[in-house]
C-alpha cells in the first residue's frame, strides 16, 4: 500500500527581513536585489509513514518540529522537496486550532467543519458528539475568549478527533487539561489508532511519546537524525539534551554497588572523582542543567558521582539497580551533626521516595570548618520506565533541622526498562488460579 505521508528531500528556508517592506519588494520583484537572511528550518528531510502508524516526533526547541507539522498541515509550503499526502489531515497545533476568540465554541466547531467541507447533515451529526466529548457545559455556547486554557484544549481536541481524519497531528496538546481529560484523550487516541488513523505526535514529554508511539523521528537543527523504534530514538534524544557523547547500555548483573575488584574503569572513575579539585559533575551525561540549588553557605555539595550496580558509565537505567551516589561536600563551618539526604522525584516534582541519615538512623562523624568529605550513599531503585530526578543534599539537625545545601533535580535518571507496571513503582505481579483442592 502506498504510504500516507511521503516526504522527499524537504527543505524549508525562512527568509528573515530587516523590515516587512523588503519582503514585499522581493515578492513583487522576485529577480530584484536580495534583501533577506536565510534561516534553514528543515534540511533534506525524507521519510514515509504508512497508514495506521503512530509516530512520535522529538527534538529540542527550534529543531524544526513545528515547521515540519506546518508543512504537513499545509499552512506552510516547502522551499524544496516534495510532500505527498493521501487523505485528510486534522491538526492541533499548540494551543490554537484556528478558533476565533470572539465566536462561541459551537460556532467555531461548525465553522471548522465547514472548512473541512463536511455536508450539513454530517455537521449536525457530529456536533453533539463534539459537545459531549469536550464536556465544557454551558461554555460551549460562550465566546472562546472566556475559556480557561484547559477548556480551550478540550474543545480543540474534541473538535479535531471527531473529524475522523486519516492523519491526526497532535502538537503538545496533551500538556494541558486535567489528568482525567488527558486520560480520556489517550483512551480515544488508542481507539483511533486501532481504527487505522495515522497519528503524528509531538511532545517534549518523552514519557508520553514512548507510551503512545512505537516509532519516532528525531529532528535536530532541521535535520532528520534518526527514524526508528521509539526507545532508541528517545535514548539518542536524551543524549542530545543532556550532552552525552555516546550511548552505552548499563551492564546488567548482580552487584552490591561496590566497584568490582580489578574493574579498571570503575576504580579510575572513583579515583578521578576523589582527586579532582574541580567539579566534574557538569560534564557528566546524567547531570541536569536545570537543577535548583538551595544553599545557606555552611556547606556545599561540590561534586557528585553516580554508579549503578557498580557501573559508572550510565546512559540509561534498567530500573532495577542499586544506585551508589558519591557526594563531595566542602564544609565552610564546623557542623557537629551533619546528615546526608536523597530523594527521587518524578518529572513533575512528586517525591517517590527519599531518606536521609537521620531517618535511617545512621550517625555521621562531625565535620570541621574547611574540611572536604566524600560520602557514599547506596539505595536500591525499583522504577517503571520514565524520567526521574534525584535530589541530593546535606543537612544538619542541630540546633534544628536546616538545609545546608540541597541540589534539587541535580541528576537525571532516564529509566528505560520495564513497562509491565504503570505508575512509578515497578512491582512485578504474579497471578495464579487456585484449584479447588488447594483452597
Amino acid at each position, binding site marked *: 500500500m502506498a504510504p500516507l505521508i511521503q516526504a522527499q528531500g524537504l527543505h524549508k528556508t*525562512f527568509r528573515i527581513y530587516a523590515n*516587512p*517592506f523588503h*519582503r*514585499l519588494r522581493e*515578492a*513583487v520583484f522576485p529577480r530584484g536585489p536580495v534583501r533577506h537572511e536565510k534561516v534553514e528550518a528543515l534540511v533534506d528531510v525524507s521519510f514515509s509513514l504508512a497508514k495506521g502508524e503512530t509516530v512520535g516526533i522529538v527534538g529540542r526547541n527550534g529543531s524544526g518540529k513545528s515547521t515540519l507539522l*506546518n508543512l504537513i*498541515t*499545509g*499552512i*506552510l*509550503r516547502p522551499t524544496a522537496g516534495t510532500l505527498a499526502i493521501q487523505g485528510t*489531515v486534522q*491538526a492541533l*497545533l499548540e494551543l*490554537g*486550532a*484556528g*478558533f*476565533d*476568540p*470572539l*465566536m462561541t465554541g459551537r*460556532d467555531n466547531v*461548525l*465553522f*471548522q467543519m*465547514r*472548512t473541512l*467541507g463536511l455536508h450539513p447533515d454530517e455537521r449536525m451529526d457530529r456536533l453533539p458528539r463534539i459537545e459531549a466529548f469536550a464536556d465544557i457545559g454551558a461554555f460551549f455556547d460562550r465566546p472562546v475568549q472566556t475559556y480557561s486554557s484547559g477548556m480551550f484544549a478540550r474543545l480543540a481536541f474534541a473538535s479535531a478527533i471527531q473529524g475522523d481524519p486519516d492523519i491526526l497531528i497532535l502538537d503538545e496538546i496533551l500538556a494541558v487539561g486535567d489528568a482525567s481529560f488527558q486520560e480520556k484523550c489517550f483512551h480515544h487516541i488508542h481507539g483511533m489508532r486501532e481504527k487505522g488513523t495515522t497519528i503524528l505526535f509531538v511532545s517534549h514529554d518523552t514519557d508520553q511519546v514512548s507510551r503512545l508511539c512505537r516509532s519516532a523521528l528525531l529532528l535536530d537543527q532541521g535535520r532528520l537524525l534518526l527514524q526508528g523504534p521509539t526507545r532508541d530514538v528517545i535514548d539518542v534524544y536524551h543524549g542530545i539534551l543532556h550532552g552525552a557523547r555516546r550511548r552505552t547500555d548499563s551492564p546488567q548483573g548482580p552487584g552490591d554497588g561496590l566497584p568490582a575488584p580489578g574493574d579498571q574503569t570503575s576504580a579510575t572513575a572513583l579515583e578521578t572523582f576523589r582527586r579532582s579539585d574541580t567539579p566534574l559533575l557538569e560534564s557528566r551525561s546524567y547531570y541536569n542543567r536545570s537543577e535548583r540549588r538551595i544553599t545557606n553557605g555552611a556547606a556545599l555539595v561540590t561534586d557528585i558521582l553516580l554508579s549503578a550496580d557498580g557501573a559508572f558509565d550510565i546512559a540509561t537505567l534498567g530500573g532495577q539497580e542499586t544506585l551508589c551516589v558519591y557526594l563531595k561536600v566542602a564544609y565552610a563551618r564546623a557542623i557537629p551533626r551533619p546528615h546526608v539526604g536523597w530523594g527521587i522525584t518524578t518529572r513533575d516534582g512528586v517525591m517517590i521516595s527519599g531518606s536521609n541519615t537521620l531517618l535511617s538512623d545512621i550517625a555521621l562523624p562531625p565535620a570541621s570548618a574547611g574540611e572536604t568529605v566524600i560520602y557514599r550513599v547506596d539505595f536500591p531503585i525499583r522504577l517503571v520506565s520514565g524520567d526521574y530526578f534525584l535530589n541530593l543534599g546535606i543537612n544538619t539537625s542541630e540546633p534544628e533541622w536546616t538545609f545546608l545545601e540541597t541540589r534539587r533535580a541535580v541528576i537525571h535518571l532516564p529509566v528505560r526498562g520495564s513497562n509491565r507496571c504503570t505508575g512509578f513503582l515497578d512491582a512485578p505481579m504474579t497471578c495464579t488460579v487456585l484449584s479447588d483442592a488447594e483452597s
Partner: protein
Amino acid sequence: MTPVAGRAWRRRWIVAGDLVLALVWRMVRARYLGTAGGVVWLFVQPLTQILIYWVVFSVGFRVRGPSGEPYILFFVTGFVPWVFFQEAMTAGSSAVTSAPHLVRKTAFPTILLPPAAVFSAAVTHCLILPIVVVLLTVSGRPPSLTIVATAYYLGALTAFALGLAWIAASLQVYFRDIGPILAVILGAWFWLTPVAWPPSLLEDVFSPWMTINPLTYIVNGYRDSLLLGRWPTLDLAALVFWAEALAALALGRLAFRRLRGGFAEVI
C-alpha cells in the same frame, strides 16, 4: 495546485461558497449583534452623514439637483453606493490581518477572506437601499421599473471592489500602513467622484478623469436607475469601467496568489 477532476472541482467551489457565506454571516452578526444598539447603528451612521450634507448643501448653499430634483435625493442616490465602496475597501483590506487564527493555525483558503468582507459590506448596503426607496417615494419621486438595474450596478461595484480588496488585503499583511494610506485615498476619491456635486458642474474641466474614474460610472448608474428612470446602456463609460474592473480582479487575484505564500510567516 494540480488540476483536479471535474467533480472535485465543482465540490471545491461548493465548499468555497459555503465558507464565504459562513464568513459573511459571521461578520454581519459580529458587527451588529455585539453592540447594544445593534442594527440601529447600521442606519444611524449613513443617515446622520446624509443629514449633514443635506443641511450644508440644500439648506445652506441652496443647491438643487442637476435635473431640478431636491438636492437630498440627488445626494442620497449617489452617496449610498459610495458608502458601500468605502466599507468594502476598509473591511476588505484588513480581511487577512484580522483573521490571524485562520492564517497561522489552519490551512484555511485565505483567498476567500477578502470576498467575504466585500460581500458583508454588500449585505449592509442591501439593508440601506430600502430606506432610499422609501425616501424617494415619500418625496414624490417613486423609483420606476429601472430600479432593477441597481442590482447590475451593485454587482459591477462588487467586482471592482473585490479586485482592489485582494490587492489591499495581501499588501496589508506585509505593510500595515495600507490602512491609513487607504483612508487618505478614499477621502480624496470621494471628492473626485460626483457624489456630493453634480457631474455637470465639472464635466468640461474633468471630462477625461470622469470617464476614467470607475466610481463615476457606478454613482451615475445608481442615480439613473433609482432617480431618473434610465436603463444602463453600452457606452464608452461602461466599457472603460468593465475594463478597469476586470483588470482589478485579475491583478488582485494574481497579487494575492503571489503574496499569500508568506502570510503564515509574517502575520
